[in-house]
């Protein structure tokens, strides 16, 4: 790990860069409502319209945005007319937004364009799309008349701006205004497809979490909805109806997907999962029932939007309660550092953002459609676009949190491994490490020498001076023992007063000379406890004495030799009948067990 200052520099560098990029993105996204501001050959025809229906003139010389009309039902016809401006455009065209209606355009009573009249007469679904009506040369100053005939109940309740200009510039203006939804919609859709492709692979790795596929389905549905709501599919297909059908289908699927996703993340919370699955089922039934109703000719497929909106609006309450319930309970059960908890929080906050944006969208749409002057023509789906985008990003973030957790836990594991294999008192290796090493040696062809060591006097010190003094003695002995061997040798404390050394070469003489050297050193130096010398017995055994035997056997023999030495020293001590019972004499002769 680097020091504090580089860390801070990196922190500021990263944050500044992130802010810079987001700033650039915000600057580059500046929506314009007027094509002429972009330097395009086009203009908005907003003023000077006369609006008529069968009952007579409704408005005269009015602005389209302030023209209040009630929601149009099947067969209602509205006729818009005005004089075209004098400005001449090359390849001039009108852009008219058609919402579930049959459209006819007249120039001085001469019909120049009609759209959807056949479909209207058949009673089938009329699409929502942008119509480009090419104007013949010499249109300037002539009277344009546009008639809209609604093809279904509640088809429209206002008129979008009608644009006049060079057809390519009108198209460019449209592309400009849908750039952000286009990019985000494509992102969500392709992300979903990639997720789905990956799911099989991930399941193969024993990951059976339903979050991933459900998240992918949500992302796909939202992506398709964003694209369709901005008429992108019209650019790709000859069939105008395709875009409309995709828009409605994806819209109807939104509540189902959301409750399904909630069901997936609330695994482990029985009540919430039950509620979420119940709502999913209800939504699915409602969705499926629209299809027979359409084909039986009772109600057109595109007229259920209000019901779905209502459903979304109502379900948002239990969904919110479920979210809060999960947050509340998982907060109780787990610590806040738990990655699972944090990833749930991320997923749920994304969920909440989306639900709120969808709410705002639904409310504003229905308010505009049924109550305001401008009607549904004013609706733009950007709140929902950003809501969907943030939602999917949150799904991502929850994965990032996991990544982060793994990176951090690598450090923690190193620490734990240290704890697991080291004796906290002496910082030598411990019994577990020794066992592992002996097992490893049994399988390898390495040659080695095992020394088993047993301290004298520990029991006596513990009993007379207390455990603290005993610990000191152990620590002192451990440090002396450690310093007698190379760093590559394994020096371990395997019990209270038992030590073990594994030397990784076949040199019994070197081992015994080291041990005797240690005995001398300990004897010469004053001990940590006055009057108590730190003595020990040891036994040495090398692997070459037992070719083909396990390391366990080698260790056992070393242990036996250690006990033999211990006995011998007891006898010597008894013979010496010293004034000091606890003064050790060094072992006089070389180990002779061969």
């Amino acid at each position, binding site marked *: 790990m680097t020091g504090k200052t580089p860390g801070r520099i990196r922190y500021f560098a990263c944050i500044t860069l992130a802010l810079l990029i987001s700033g650039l993105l915000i600057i580059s996204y500046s929506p314009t409502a007027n094509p002429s501001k972009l330097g395009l050959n086009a203009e908005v025809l907003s003023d000077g319209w006369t609006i008529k229906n069968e009952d007579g003139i409704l408005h005269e010389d009015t602005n389209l945005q302030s023209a209040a009309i009630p929601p149009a039902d099947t067969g209602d016809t509205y006729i818009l007319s005005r004089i075209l401006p004098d400005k001449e455009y090359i390849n001039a065209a009108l852009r008219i937004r058609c919402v579930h209606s049959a459209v006819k355009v007249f120039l001085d009573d001469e019909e120049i364009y009609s759209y959807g009249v056949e479909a209207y007469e058949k009673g089938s679904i009329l699409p929502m799309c942008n119509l480009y009506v090419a104007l013949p040369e010499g249109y300037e100053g002539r009277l344009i008349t546009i008639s809209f005939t609604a093809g279904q109940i509640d088809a429209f309740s206002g008129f979008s701006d009608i644009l006049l200009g060079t057809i390519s510039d009108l198209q460019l203006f449209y592309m400009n205004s849908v750039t952000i939804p286009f990019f985000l919609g494509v992102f969500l859709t392709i992300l979903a497809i990639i997720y789905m492709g990956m799911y099989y692979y991930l399941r193969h790795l024993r990951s059976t979490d339903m979050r991933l596929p459900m998240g992918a389905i949500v992302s796909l549905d939202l992506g398709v909805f964003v694209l369709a709501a901005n008429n992108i599919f019209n650019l790709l297909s000859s069939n105008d109806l395709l875009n409309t059908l995709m828009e409605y289908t994806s819209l109807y699927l939104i509540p189902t997907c959301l409750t399904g996703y909630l069901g997936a993340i609330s695994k482990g919370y029985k009540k919430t999962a039950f509620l979420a699955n119940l709502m999913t089922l209800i939504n699915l039934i409602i969705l499926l029932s629209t299809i027979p109703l359409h084909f039986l000719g009772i109600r057109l497929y595109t007229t259920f939007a209000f019901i779905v909106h209502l459903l979304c609006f109502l379900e948002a309450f239990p969904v919110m309660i479920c979210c809060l319930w999960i947050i509340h309970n998982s907060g109780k059960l787990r610590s806040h550092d738990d990655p699972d908890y944090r990833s749930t929080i991320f997923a749920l906050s994304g969920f909440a953002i989306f639900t709120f944006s969808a709410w705002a969208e639904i409310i504003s749409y229905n308010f505009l459609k049924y109550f305001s002057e401008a009607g549904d023509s004013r609706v733009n789906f950007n709140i929902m676009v950003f809501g969907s985008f943030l939602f999917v*990003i949150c799904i991502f973030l929850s994965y990032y949190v996991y990544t982060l957790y793994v990176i951090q836990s690598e450090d923690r594991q190193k620490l734990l491994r240290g704890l697991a294999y080291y004796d906290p008192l002496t910082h030598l290796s411990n019994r577990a490490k020794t066992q592992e090493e002996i097992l490893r040696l049994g399988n390898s062809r390495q040659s080695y020498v095992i020394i088993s060591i047993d301290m004298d006097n520990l029991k006596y010190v513990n009993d007379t001076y207390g455990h603290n003094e005993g610990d000191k003695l152990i620590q002192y002995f451990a440090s002396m023992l450690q310093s007698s061997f190379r760093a590559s040798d394994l020096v371990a404390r395997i019990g209270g007063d038992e030590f073990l050394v594994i030397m990784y070469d076949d040199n019994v003489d070197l081992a015994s000379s080291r041990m005797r050297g240690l005995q001398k050193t300990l004897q010469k130096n004053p001990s940590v406890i006055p009057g108590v010398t730190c003595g020990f017995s040891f036994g040495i055994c090398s692997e070459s004495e037992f070719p083909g035997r396990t390391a366990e056997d080698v260790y056992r023999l070393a242990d036996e030799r250690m006990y033999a030495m211990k006995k011998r020293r007891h006898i010597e001590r008894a013979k010496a009948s010293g004034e000091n019972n606890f003064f050790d004499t060094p072992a006089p002769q070389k180990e002779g067990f061969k």
Partner: protein
Amino acid sequence: MKRIKSLPIFAFLGILLLTLIISSILFSYKPVNHMENIVDFKLSVNDRDGGYYHTDRSKTDTASIFSVGDYLYISADMPAGYYKSPYLLINARYCGFTVSLDREEIFENKMQKALKAEFIPYRAVFVPLPSRDLEGHRLTITMLLTEDDVEFPIDYVLYGDYIDILKSFIQSKISILFGASFLCIFGVVFLLIALIFAARNYGFAAHIVSAAICLSFGLWLLEYQLLICLFYQQPFFDNLAYTLVFTLIPLCLVLLGLITGTLKRRRFVFAILFVIFYDLILVIGRYEGMTPQTVTTGVAALYIISSIFMLVIEARFVLSKRRTESIYVQLFGLASLNISLIITSIYYSGRLMSAKTISTSLDVALVVGASFFVVSRMLAYVFSLTDSVSAHQQEQTLSKLAYMDSLTGLPNRTTCDRVFMELDDSDLDYMIMSLDLNGLKVLNDSLGHAVGDRLIKDFADALNICFPDPAFRSRIGGDEFVVVMSEFPGESYLASRIDRLKKLLDEKSKDTGFDYSAAYGCCFRHELKNASSHDVYMKADERMYINKRMTHAVGY
């Protein structure tokens, strides 16, 4: 490493293929009116040096090389057909041009720039024509070249109704449009997220670099495939392709270094520095008047050579033993990106040799390569997710090792210290009992450690029976044990438990003939005022020694 079975990869390819099939069924566009690709041009050239020549050959046969300042004129008779919104789609590079109909100029594109001999990129231009019957009228396109050593600057001229031309233009590039848009947003989103995380954590460098690669590759594809003009026509994007094309290879090299962990090797640093140096030479050369063809060839050569170099490194690394599945997947993604870069470069230089029409299958190959890269990056994240589950389990066993005594399974000294600290934080009354095995030392010394270990295990079992949970039992040293109780009915209960332990140990001693007896001492918190748990323990320890001496005195 687990072997990657091929089935999941086929499943992924299956989903990809399914998506392609479904979308190609859903999104098909048939032009309403007939569109005419105008090819039979008569070409005349007005050389900068004053030479003028005239040719009747159609432009596809032209193999001439033109230079800056040359005027090229092509003319053709408009074909039959009446359109409501007649347009021409002209794909032109390195030239400004005007379009005239019967010698009357009706459209002008970047002539001012061309007169100043500034750089003009490859663009698709929609040219509006007057909406009347144009059959038999003379169409003339005048081009002014801005670069040396270039071939015929216009790829094709398509004549038809505007909506038809637009939709079929989009249709021909639908895979690139979707793939590249996705790469851009993916790059931006991941760049931001990775930057925010990298501010406080380590190990995010590879994520940042790969996000930058996605962004740069996506933007470059959009630009090079002429798609950016669908959204923006600002001159800001004019030099984009030339800027981005130089960044890709150094970024890829850095990513490779980060994945394989060889970034700091001297050879690797030299390779990256060399590529940057090479790029710089090309950039400076471009400003100093190097022809675009030379630069393009140079870049294509760099792409091909370094991609092959990277593929070799990737293959060597995959075959070596240092790989994990995560590295394997990341390398796989990078390799597929490299392959698609090689394809692009060959395609790029192929275009230079003969102006081919854009081939859709190559586009698809390019997008598939890029999408494999994206998938590998996303898998690298998700890998960490699945790894975290197993890491969690491993951590649990490790913590068990760290806090447990491996012989008896009782908590060890570390845990005991922690419990003592927790006791200090609470207000509850508690009792600490210190126990010491009397016979261990003798047994160890006389019969060996194996027998001693048996004694310790048996004693621990007896402790577990007599002081069940919630009492805390721990082995803190060779023959030292500690019992902590914070909730118990009373001292009589404690006495009964100790009796039980004594009885159990006596039975064991009789059965085996070894000395199972233990000395013990207890101390309650309320006995000492303002005492820490350590003090209470020391007191218990002291009492244990008194107890030990008494029993020994009795024993002898």
